[in-house]
């Protein structure tokens, strides 16, 4: 089980932001979603989410709220800044993808 290194860190953060773009989720739900999206290809320790999530929270790109859903759980959602960051990176991603298709 590999821990994403620094080079991949940025991409991983982006991934987290993307999973939160639709609706707020708690940590486990994010882990499950990532597993789905990457079709089990991206092998990441589930726990390594948490340092990344907290880092993003410290950078004010996501915010957190404790909600009752039978049990107390911490739900993360995007902030305005986080959404802006996502759009900025998404644009670049679009450009890259286009290039790749045509070359």
């Amino acid at each position, binding site marked *: *089980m590999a821990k994403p290194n620094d080079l991949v860190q940025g991409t991983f953060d982006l991934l987290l932001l993307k999973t939160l773009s639709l609706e707020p989720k*708690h*940590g*486990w739900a994010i*882990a499950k979603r990532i597993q789905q999206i990457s079709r089990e290809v991206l092998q990441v*320790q*589930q*726990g*390594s989410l*948490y*340092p990344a999530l*907290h*880092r993003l*929270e*410290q*950078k*004010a790109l996501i915010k957190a709220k*404790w909600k009752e859903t039978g*049990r*107390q*759980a*911490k739900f993360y959602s995007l902030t305005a*800044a986080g959404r802006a960051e996502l759009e900025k990176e998404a644009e670049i991603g679009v450009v890259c993808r286009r290039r790749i298709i045509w070359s």
Partner: protein
Amino acid sequence: MLWVRRFWLKLQGLFRRNRNVNRLDDEIQFHLEQQIAENCAAGMSPHEARYAARRAFGNPTYLKEETRDTWGWVWLEQIVQDLRYGARALSKNPSFTVVAVLAVALGVGVNTGIFSVLNGVALKLLPVPRANQIVSVDQIFHGNFPRIEHGEPEMFSYSEYKNYRANNQVFSGLLAYAPFLGDVPLGAENPKPVMGEETSCNFFEVLGERPALGRTFVEADCRAEGVSPVVVLSDELWRTQFGADPRIVGKSISLNRAKFVVIGVAGQGFRGLDAWPVEFWAPVTMEKALEGEDLLSKDNASWLGLLGRMRPGVSLEEVRADLGVIAGRIDQLYPGRTTTLAIHRATFMGRSEERTVVFGIGAVILAAVGLVLLIACANVANLLLARASARQKEIAIRLSIGGSRWRIVRQLLTESLLIAFLGGALGSLIAFWSVDGIARYLLAHLPHGFPPLLWDVSPDLHVWGYSLALMVLTGIVFGLAPALHATRQDLSTAVKGETAGLPGKARGRRLRSALVAVQVAVCMVLLIAAGLLMRSLYSAQTVDPGFEMKGIIQARYELPGYNVAAGQTFQRELVARAQALPGVDEVEQARVMPLGNQNMHTVMTPQGEKRYKSFEFNIVSPGFFGMLGMPIVRGRTFTQAEVQSDAPVLVITESTARRLWPDQDAIGKSLREVNALSQDLGPRVYQVVGVVKDAQVSHLGQSDGPFFYMPAGPEELAAMQLLVHSKASDVTTINGIREAVRILDAGLVVDVTELSGNLELWRTPSRIVAALSGVLGALALLLASIGVHGVVSYGVSQRTREIGIRMTLGANGGDVMILALRQALRPVVIGASVGIIACAAVSQVLSTVLYGIGSHDPIAFIGVPLFLLGVAFLSSYLPARRASRFDPMVTLRYE
């Protein structure tokens, strides 16, 4: 705005740590439970589900730590943690902490003290508003040129000052002042000698000093010579001499027998720009009335110092360029001369010549105390090494479970910095108190003839900054090596606890020995330098200046307002009265006193030759040489007839004769005078009638410069001073002379003292240097001895186990002791040898300052290393003896 949010979040992370830790635990707990639930739903047993969930998750402890690291500022928390840990470690080991702190306090304290003194002398800006805008201007001449030097050679004349003032573009104001106008008689009857300054009329304005009473000068006061006899008093003088009279403004006072009107009193605390407190200021145009000679009209005389306030936005470079142009223009009037200007920010003791001297001496002293600090650092480093070896196990364990070496080094360094700050703060505080006390003591005990000094050694920003920088540097210097050493190790042996006893593997022994060697070497250098200085100064104390001083009283005075005839009459009558005093057997006259710090120079040319030569000279009465015990080795002194007829005769010194006419008889040769300004030959030709033995009359330690004596012509008679030899007690004679002067003219200021006082004055700087080097040397010795003792005895005790083994194998007590001693003394011997070599180099530098002691004085070079070896020997002897007496079984089990 984002950064505000982030900052706020970080702050919260710092202060709400506990809550966040618990929340994180809850969060991860939730995650695991969800995963377990999913696994169960997929059909695993509860046990399998839990196991699979944990595996999928990863190491929770590690991940929790990682997550926690994202909160707050990690580095800040780590520093706080280090500090707390360090403080606790230090308080657990009080004896170690106290010794280390004291050693640092000694080293840093001495350095800060010396620096604050130097700062007060050479670095502090003037005590006026916006002092960083004020620059001092000095001129340095090159080439062949005539010049009248009334004050320092780098000063300006009045016309030069006016030129610079009118033509510069860079100053908002340029002032001139003539410093150190001393012993001006204040008052008509029983005058009191006071110190004053002649200044340009914009003096107070440029400096930004407002008067406390009345007004200061206006330009009209300086419009012409002598038109405005006004004066501004200092606050101190106003209080002590005039009883703080509120109606002083407008009153008349007598200065140098001339009437001056008081127009104002300066603000409290303003005492002028130099180290000597000024008591009154007068316009520069009153110079003649105050000094008796006319310098205002002399275009080529150096007597005024210049200070300018730069316009805002002007740089020093622009000032140099602008004034350089003016200097070049003035140079055109004096072919053969080029002038460069020295322009610096004005400091309290600001003349450029003084500045070079002070910086030079200051650098040497700072180097010396820096060495003392180095010894202290070596001491503390050794202590740290010894202590680190006791914590070896702990550090080894931390390293082996994956602790970062850098982290541990940082923690050890924090401890060192803590010691450095504690010691440094303690030392600096003590230094400030004691420097103040010492300065006061010195000023109160200055020898007669020294003017009272103003000396502000209070700490300012420079000093605090220096102190802080020293503390940080010290902490790193003595902390880094032991920290690095303690964390670089052979882990297995350390963990197993085999810390001592095996030969060749004693922990850190090489490093400790190296430190001892360094300490010994540095201490040697300091001690030998101090020893050499003190020995040479001792011999300077006992040096014979070449003339008699015992029983001779000198009387120095001026006769303001006397014309030639009145002056002659006064002198005649004074001599007669002095001769009539009880016990007096000889009365002579001289224009300047031997070693009296007044020197007269002129230029002459040997008859028939082309070259000009600069001479120092004195005007004396015929019996001068006899009274002072200076033997005439050829020819004779002046006759009375020659004196009365103002004959052109000279007596020259032996070395002058040797220089001008080697291998010839100087008697009968002649010297022709040269006009100082025009450089033409003058009319008078002087004949040499006698040759006198050399004596140190102008500088202590120097007696072979070109020097001649001439008799007093009728005009010079009025300026002569008195030398009286008496068999009665000095006090009686002094009082008698004072009384005699008072009877003749009660309005004169006369300075009557023993002639030997002049020598004392010359010796004072040497005494201070000797005292300083003695103290520093003693400090160095103390620190080095403590260091050597500590390390050597520790080293021996570390090898107790080895000693036990050897004794078991058959060595007797004596062998063991010799082994221990040899091992212990080796670094000391190495250090001493290095020290001697280093010292040979240092003493070359010192040889310029040494009177008559060879720079390889055996006593210093042998005595000091022997002393240190003795200390080392004693330090190792006792523990070694104790170890050799132990029961081997006991030492073997010793751990």
